[in-house]
């Protein structure tokens, strides 16, 4: 074997070993939150990630760690990412993104404290929506900035939902917006009931008797619904039987017969009374 061939084989072996061990021997960068082994991020992006993390730590102790390398080597991206997360002991409510610029693969892993609220499907969604398009185009600064921004928004929403940092007023507004149709329906029902109650009171006021208690089910058929308004004026009286003609015979009592109405008490049953023509609603309040 020639020297040149031997040297090239040796070089390949060394590269293979170094690539395979890169994944597992990676130390966090000096800023911890950004490890840019691939050297593709600008200083502005690094500063942005660090500033987001300082706010995040104040908010909830979370962390968003970004790792960009050239190659993962023979390691699967998920194993790489989880391994780094554990080795670097990222916070339990933190996230780590690891991506390989030359292989266009990578992913997010999160701490055990937020695994339930940020499942795998959500991780994929966020990456599809905010990261991969720019990453695949080589716009690494945009990819990282967009993703970190969206993840920070998620943290804000998540910790706001859990009752940290949201005021009563904001919760009230949120409740109203979510239930707007139900609220409109309830307001309409209330308006109908109030209008009907007003009509009910006018009805009894017109009768000149004390107003009984109104119940909301009267909108379906209370006593006031059968009131058809004031009686029309009577028509002219028919003419009498002629001037000077014979009077009709009188009754035995004074002033004609009684209409049967009576305002006092009676020992009799109600059969001999006549009221205003209404009917009981059927309800009963009292002791049975």
């Amino acid at each position: 074997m020639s020297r040149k061939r031997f040297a090239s084989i040796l070089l390949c072996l060394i590269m293979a070993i170094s690539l395979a061990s890169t994944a597992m021997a990676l130390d966090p960068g000096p800023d911890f939150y950004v490890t840019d082994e691939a050297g593709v991020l600008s200083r502005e992006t690094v500063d942005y990630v660090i500033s987001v993390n300082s706010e995040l730590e104040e908010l909830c102790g979370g962390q968003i760690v970004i790792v960009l390398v050239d190659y993962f080597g023979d390691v699967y991206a998920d194993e790489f990412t989880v391994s780094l997360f554990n080795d670097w002991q990222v916070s339990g409510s933190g996230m780590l993104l690891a991506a390989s610029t030359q292989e266009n693969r990578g992913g997010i892993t999160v701490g055990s404290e937020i695994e339930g609220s940020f499942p795998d499907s959500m991780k994929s969604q966020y990456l599809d929506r905010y990261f991969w398009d720019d990453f695949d185009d080589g716009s690494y600064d945009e990819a990282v900035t967009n993703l970190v921004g969206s993840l920070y928004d998620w943290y804000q929403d998540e910790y706001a939902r859990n009752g940290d940092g949201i005021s009563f007023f904001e919760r009230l507004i949120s409740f109203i917006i979510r239930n707007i149709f139900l609220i409109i329906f309830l307001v309409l029902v209330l308006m109908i009931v109030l209008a009907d109650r007003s009509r009910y009171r006018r009805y009894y006021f017109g009768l000149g008797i004390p107003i009984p208690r109104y119940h909301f089910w009267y909108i379906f058929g209370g006593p006031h619904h059968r009131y058809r308004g004031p009686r029309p004026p009577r028509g002219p009286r028919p003419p009498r039987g002629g001037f000077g003609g014979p009077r009709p015979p009188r009754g035995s009592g004074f002033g004609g017969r009684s209409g049967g109405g009576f305002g006092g008490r009676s020992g009799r049953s109600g059969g001999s009374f006549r009221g205003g023509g209404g009917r009981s609603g059927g309800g009963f309040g009292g002791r049975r």
Partner: protein
Amino acid sequence: MNGLKVFKSRKTAAAILALVILAATPLGAYLSLNKAAQRIEDGFYEGVYLDDQGYTAGSMDTYLSDASRAALGLVTAGSNYDALDAETQELRSARESLLSAGTIEEKYLANERMRAAFEAFSAAFPGAVPSDYDQESFDTYSELFTQSQSAMEHSGYNESVDSFVSSVMGAFPAKLIAAVFSIDPPESFGVNK
């Protein structure tokens, strides 16, 4: 036009009606049975409603994901130790087979392989003299793995399949329709014949 007059007769109408009913009934039965079988199998991914307990259990697919996550955590812990190379590689490989499994039976077989690999890994782990952090990781991931396996046993999925096969597909006329139209029963989480 005279030929079309035959369609005006009652006998023709009755015959057509009978034909339509004869054709539609088995077709409708086939579609219904197929749909019902599919609904049972959907329970693998969406969870099964447990009548006696009054709630929908977590899905087998979710528990398998949990088991996979746990296995990945164990692999990352084990990869720090040369003494665990073989067990780590087997666990890694078993997990890969689960991730690439398509059918329910394939997922079952992959899970069985992962369980065996987990047991071997667990037996070998103390011998690697792990650090405190790795020991904690092992404890956490092992618990998650064990819980997911236990949850799978209580998910009610296989019971729902057995109940459907015996009470619906095993009864007349579903049994006949299934035989005529070659309708497959829902896959249980196991080795299906």
